[in-house]
């Protein structure tokens, strides 16, 4: 622990410690490293485009498959409904006019 005057004097000296500072130099291979990073950066968009293309293709394939399944399901069900409707219509008609009885009352 220093007294206030000493601390102030040291602080002043410390503030002057950068007065004759010389510049630090960068690594000699910095240009090669920058070029490598630029090259790596340019490869990333190609990968991203491929990824996007695969995702879109998968989505399109899924959409087509869902449509085919839906079409098949709906067309099968529509036939069944039609047949059922036809059958129920006929039986209703037969019931109304008593045509569904096997015995005749003369």
């Amino acid at each position, binding site marked *: *622990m*220093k007294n206030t005057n*000493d601390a102030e004097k040291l*602080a*002043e000296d410390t503030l002057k410690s950068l007065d004759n*500072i010389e510049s*630090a130099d*960068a690594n000699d291979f*910095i240009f090669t490293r920058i070029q490598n*990073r630029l090259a790596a950066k340019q490869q990333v968009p190609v990968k991203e485009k491929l990824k996007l293309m695969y995702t879109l293709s998968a989505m399109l394939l899924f959409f087509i498959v869902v449509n085919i399944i839906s079409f098949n399901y709906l067309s099968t069900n529509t036939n069944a409904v039609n047949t059922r409707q036809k059958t129920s219509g006929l039986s209703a008609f037969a019931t109304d006019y008593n045509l569904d009885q096997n015995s005749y009352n003369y």
Partner: protein
Amino acid sequence: MSDQELINALCEGNQQAFKLLVSTYKKSVFNTVLGFLQHFENAEEVTQDVFIKIFETIGSFKNQSKLSTWIYRISVNESLDFIRRAKRKKRFAMITSLFGNENEVLYQPVEFNHPGVLMENKEKAAVLFKAISQLPEKQKTAFVLQKVEHCSQQKIAEIMQLNEGAVESLLTRAKTNLKKLLINYYSG
């Protein structure tokens, strides 16, 4: 090659021009970044970031300032961004550590010895650099550019896009704050 010829060549993607730009400005960029980050590996990484940014955005350079001023500005911004990101990561790591997650130490400022400092000043310069890292961003920028990169007040004003009076005021406040920090350090 003049600045304008260099800029035109860079806009055309000329690799030789880019090599010339790197060799011309690498020292000032690295030295500025090192003054802010006080860490060699990080400073080298950010120096690379600066030149990549220059290469990618040279088309947007509008000749409103000198090329060197623009490069200094990018260097300062990239350095400050790096420090902000590191602080954010450190804060996040601290929060997650409260919940029991184990995190590696992300950014622990250690004593920094600038290679350009005279041998007899090494110890004091290390203390000063530690104090500089505690200054607010604008004061730190003005002080680092003046002391580490030996920029004139006019040049600092151009880089920071301020008037010279504002730069002078920033430098005065930086020195006052540094003195307080140093007195606290030595008397504590």
